[in-house]
Structure formats: C-alpha cells, structure tokens
C-alpha cells in the first residue's frame, strides 16, 4: 500500500487500509481462486454429460418397454457392484484427510492419504475388470441396446476413474517433490473435488444401471 495522498487528501492510507474491512480480509489466500472456479465449472459440464447419458438410458429403456433387460439377459448381479461401491465411495475420505493434513502442514499425511485413494481407486478398476470378464460371456456391447448402454456408461465412468487416479498420482509425485504447504495446496483441493465427483457419479450409476432394472 502506498502512503500517497488519496482522494480525500489524507496520507494515513497505510494504517486505514490495513485495519479497514477490506484490509482485514485481504490476507493471502483470500477469496476463491481461479483454479477453484475452473474445476467447479469443469465438473458442472462433466456432470451435465453424465446427466445426459443417464437421461438417454431411461429414454431408451422406456421407449423399448418391458422386459428390461431385453432378450433374456438376466437382471444385473448386485454383489460385485456393491463391493465396488464399498471400495470407491469411502475412497473420498483419504483425499479429505490428505487435504486436512496439508492445511496443517503435515506432508506425510498428504502423501499417505493420496496413496490410500490410489489403492482404493485401483482396486475399484480391478473389480470392474473382473465384472466385465464375467458379463462379457453373457452379452457384449453389440448384443443389443441394453449391452451398449451398460458398457458405455460403466466404461465411460471407468475412464473418469482412471483420469482421477492419474491426477492423484501426479499430486503424489508433486508432493514428494515438496511443493505443497499450509498456504499452497490449491491443486490438492481441486483434484479432491474431481475425485468426489467421480465417486458421486458412481452412486448414480449404481442406482441407474444396477438397481433400477430390478424395480
């Protein structure tokens, strides 16, 4: 802040600016960052994409009519998807814990949390592979529209999990490099948002793809 005369001609600018309402909240970092807004808007548009995908699922299903699944395909098995849910949804917790850690300057906590998420997310993808190897014997994405929808939705989500995991790996590498601290951890925060989003989408998939055909 300068000590030059301001518009009213006083020179006490420094003290006033520092103690005024603006000055009191102008401690770094203040306000939402551009990264926060960028990630939020990216998630918004990605969420719309998934919403359109689920909308297409129900549109095709109701235009098709009963029976759903068609062509004698059995209702989806629930055991494996529920295990996958139990692995993926809690994987948001280590990210939160990691972020809470770096906010207090605990780099070990950041690294441990990210590693936990990496393991859980990797396990999820492995389970998805096992699920595919079973279901592919019954039907593929070319069998009928049900198969196309099932594989398109789950693969598309799997791709998002993969991207999320790549981001977590990248964060982990950067944290080993030692770039984050109490004041500088915006990247941890926004990657965390993306990971929570990927988890939330899975819950929507569980209800749409696995549970709704049983209704």
């Amino acid at each position, binding site marked *: *802040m*300068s000590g*030059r*005369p301001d518009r009213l001609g006083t020179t006490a600018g420094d003290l006033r600016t520092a103690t005024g309402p*603006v000055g009191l909240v*102008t401690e*770094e*970092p*203040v*306000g*939402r960052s*551009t990264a926060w*807004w*960028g990630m939020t*808007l*990216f998630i*918004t*548009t*990605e969420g*719309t*994409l998934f919403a*359109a*995908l689920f909308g*297409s699922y129900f*549109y*095709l299903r109701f*235009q*098709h009519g009963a029976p759903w699944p*068609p*062509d004698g395909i059995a209702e989806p098995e629930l055991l494996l998807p529920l295990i996958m849910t139990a692995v993926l949804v809690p994987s948001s917790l280590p990210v939160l814990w990691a972020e809470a850690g770096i906010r207090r*300057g605990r*780099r070990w906590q950041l690294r441990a949390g990210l590693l936990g998420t990496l393991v859980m997310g990797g396990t999820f993808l492995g389970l998805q592979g096992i699920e595919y190897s079973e279901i592919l014997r019954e039907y593929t*994405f*070319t*069998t*009928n*529209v*049900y*198969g*196309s*929808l099932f*594989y*398109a939705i789950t693969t598309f989500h799997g791709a998002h999990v993969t991207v999320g995991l*790549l981001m977590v790996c*990248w964060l982990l590498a*950067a944290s080993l*490099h*030692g*770039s*984050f*601290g*109490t*004041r*500088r951890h915006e*990247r941890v925060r926004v990657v965390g948002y993306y990971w929570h989003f990927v988890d939330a989408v899975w819950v929507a998939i569980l209800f749409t793809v696995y549970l709704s055909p049983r209704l």
Partner: protein
Amino acid sequence: MSSSTAAERGTGPDPAAMAALDSHWAAAPTLRNWFATVDHKRIGRRYLVTAALFFGFAGASALAMRTQLAGPEAGVLSAREYNQLFTMHGTAMIFLFSTPMLFGFGNFLVPLMIGTRDMAFPRLNAFGYWVFLFAGLFMWASVPAGAAPNGGWFAYVPLTDERHTPGLHLDVYTLGLLFLGISTTAGAINFIVTALKLRAPGMSLNRVPIFVWAIVATAFMVLFALPVLNLDNALLFLDRRFDTRFFEPERGGNVLLWQHLFWIFGHPDVYIIVMPALGIVSAVLPVFCRRGIVGYPLVVFSIVAIAIISFGVWVHHMFATGLPQLSYGFFSAASTVITIPSGLQIFAWLATMLFGRIVLSVPFLFVVGFLVTFVIGGFTGVMFALTAFDQQTTDTYFVVAHFHYVLFGGAVFPILAGIYYWLPKITGRMFDARLGRWAFWLVFLGMNLTFFPMHVSGLLGMPRRVYTYSGGLGWDALNVLATVGAYVLAVGLLLVAIGVVHALRRGDPAPDDPWGGDSLEWATSSPPKPYNFAVIPRVRSLHPVWDPATAESTGPGADEDRILAEGRRTLFTSEFDGRPERAVEMPEETLKPLVAAVGLLVLFLGLLFAWYWIAAGSGALVAGTLATWLWPPHRAPEEAGMTT
C-alpha cells in the same frame, strides 16, 4: 467525434514502472514466441482471422450451391457434391464461424472491457485457439478428399448410420465436432472465470458491460448444452465404428434419441450464436446514440432469462416427428414465452435510439441492418412456434429463409458492426468510411435479395436440401433472384475484407477513442500495450470512460497495488462486488498448449483412420504435456507455508 488520448487523460505511472511493465509483458518478436504467445489480444485476433477464413470457405460453398440452383436441372454440381457442400456450409457457419468469431471478440475485448491484463487462464486460451484451428482444418480437409460430412448439419439418424452412409463422411463430422468441443468448453470456462475474478476494482456486477454479461451467459449455456451434443456424437461414432446399438431399432435402439439430444443442444446453440452478437449491438448502438443503453437491468435480465428458457424449447424442432400432443403444447408455449425477453432487448435498443442523438456511422448502419433483418427472422420464428404452421412448412425453403434472417441478421450483421467498431482498437488504424458504406448497402441488399424470395418458394412447396428441381413449378424466377442476391452479397462481403486490408495498409493511425465509447477498452491505447493498462482503473460507474472519477483513478497518484509493475501481475477481485483481493502472477509464453493441441489432432486423426495405437500414444503425449504444464512451481518451504 471526440478523440482524447491516454496521455491527455494523464494515464501513466512513472517511466521506471512503465519500463518494468514493458519488460515483464512484452514478448520478443521471435518465431518461438509467435507460437508460444498467451496474449489474449493476439489470440483474439487469431480467432477472428481464422473464423473469417472458415466463413470464406463456407460462403464459397454457398455460392457454388446458389449457382447450381440458379436454374432447373442444372449440372454444376452432382448430388453427391451438393450434399457435402450444404452440410459443410451449415456445419462450418454454425460451429467454425459464428461461435469462434464471437469468442474471438470475447477474447480480445473481455479483459479490456473489465480492466485487466489477460484472461484468467492465458495458456488454456492459447490451447483453445490451437484446438479450434486444428479442428477446423480437420473438417475442411475432408472436402478436397471427397469425404466431407454429407448428412446435413444436424446429421439425423438413420440416414447417417453406417448402413446408409458408409465411408468416413460422418466420422469426420462426429470426431471433428468432439475435437472442436474441447476448444469451446475451455473457452467458456475461461470467460466465466475471467469475468468473475479479474474485473477491475469497483466493477461490481451492476457495472459490468452488457457485452461481458452476454459472453458469460453464453459461456454458461455452452457448459450445459455442449456436453449433450458431445454425447450424441460419441454415441453415433460408437454405433458407426464399433457396432453399438443406440440408434438401431432392430436391436432396441431409438432413432429419435439423436434428435432429442441434438436439439437439447441445438436450440440453446441458436442463442449461443446470437447472444454475444446481441451483446455487440448493446455495446455499439448506445455509443452512436450518444447515451447509455435504456433499461440496463432489464437487458441483463432478458439475457439471463433467454439463457435459461432456451433449454426448454427444443421440441419445436421436432413438431413433425409424431411426439405426444401434450408435449407440443408445452414446447409451443415455451417457444412463445422466449420471445418476450428477446422483445425486451429490441425495445431497449429502440428506446435508446429514440432518446439519443443518432450518429450515422458505418458500425451503426450495420446495427440498423441487424435490427431490420433480425426482427423479420423473429417474426417468422413466432410463426414456427405454432405447431400447425410448423407442420405445413417444415423442411421447405421457408425454414431456410427464416433461419438465415435470424442468423445472418442476428449474428453476421452484429459481427460486421463489431469489425468496423473495434477495428481501430484492434489494429490501430482507421478504415475508409465510404468503402464501409458501400459494403453495408451491398450486404444489406444482397442479403435480402438472397433470402427473402426463399420465404415465397418455401410457401410454394420447394423443399430444402434438394440439389436440383424441375422447371415450371413456379420456383424458377425466385431462384434466379436468390442467386443474383448471393453474388451481390458476396461482393459486399468482399468489400468488407478489402476495407480491413486497406485500413491495415493505408489507414490513418487511430486515436485511442475514435467513437467516444463508454467501456474501458477505449481508455487504453490503440492497439493496446501487451499489459493493456499501465494502471488498472478503479471503476466508479457503468460508463467508466464517460465518468471523470474513473479516468482520474488511472492518473498520477494511483496506488502501487493497481500498477503492479514488479513481475507479470494482475489483480483478483471478489466475484460480486469487485473488491480487491490480491495480486497474482500471470503465466509467460509457452509452447505446451500448442504441443497438447497437436497431440489431440493426432489422437483424432488416429480415431478417424482407425489407427488406435497412434491415438493411444498421442493421448499419453497430451496427458504428459498437461502434467508438466500444471506442475506446481517449486517453492521455498516458508513460501509454501511449511515451518520446518
């Protein structure tokens, strides 16, 4: 015309600070920096020039089609060629010209209008431009290869599935639009964040120029509409290439899904195209009426209202598909309701003209051309909101006439007004006004001569998209008129291009503020310095340049925290009130955006030609580039907030 200069207003901190700003912001004119630039003004100019180039290609396609249709049973083009040309004409005008052109204006103007030094994400901005360029070339290269999209710009299935249209045509379409969508989404996010965080201090939301409001509303529409188109194209690509069954009724799919998804995107897209153009009108018109726009809050309200309601009208493109009557009632009503906020804007402009003192300059002529043609297009649009009328005229030339009045009237006239209005700011040169007037009259007459007769030929039953027709059906004279009009229009547009080149070569140097404008781009030099503003202004009203208090804030005695000469820095302010938050470091020139965009180009080429390993490899290249691009800068532990 007033023509004050920055020097007269006393802008400019001490010479040492100016030299520091120059050293931090100005890039050396090397070849590397030409490719590596992140300056929003250079990127904005490139958007404008590239979009104009694609406009030229699409316009030439239209001329070829009009030549073919000049008489019955003509043999200028084969049906096969005609299909590709009309598809590329529509696709390019919508996706490769209108939106990128308006994003180009946005890129150049938004940071200047809100009084900052660059976009929020300058590197993402450069990336968006390269992706747009490559996606455009990707699609246009298919024309000489004879593999251009040929299913109409909305590519309805089942015509466009693998069985009925084999070959690469539709794969170019789906992949090209998916590729381009990356650029549009990146641009949209960048505009919103820029407008929220980088406004000059004091520019609370009620002082944001209407053009910026329009760009932000458009960007929000892009974020909600574009993913739906992307999904549609991805599903079609999967159906065509990997035999999924989304659009195949024999295996439980549904062809109408394509139309629903397409128009859930497609109708908001009409406003995505027109809205920023209306923003240009709201920027240009008041300046030549010598007063502020009438009803600023109402105009902003109508922009936001249109952005929302536009998502509830898509079925009016599908009134002839046999959906339930009840849904027609709903969408018919919504389509009628949306004319209310559109009408509000028209009346705000008319009132501004009524209460102002009009200066009949070249940009203003184009604004008047916009008002006349856009109202005619809106008038026929209201007719289409009525299901019964729609079903009579759908797929005839009446529709072609309608949407050309809307899009040529609603987008091209404002874009031309914008070109003349901001040319002095962008290039630092004045254009020849006489040439500009000639161009206006030729464009205006040519446009009406081309498209007005199409209303009549449509009502007489001429279907759209036919490559030829038999004589003696009463369409012959109308088609001759339209073709003559198209050539007159082309001459007019050529004069615009000549005018721009003439201004660049021979034009007089432009003053900083040739028109006496009210928004902040006129408060800096023409063309602006790389850092835009030596002092970031403190905004005190809706018309900062007309307001002495704001002008004074850039004069001697400005706070150091609005000069920010140490480093390449600008200011963050709060989202609503524009309170200063903190100074931030801005990124420097880098080649990474270009590398990432080239990687994406190879990825999409790999998908197109089924070289999937190459696609996977370039995907890894893109991911690696992004990883280094976003890698956190090394910080000392104290700076990062580590006490140990």
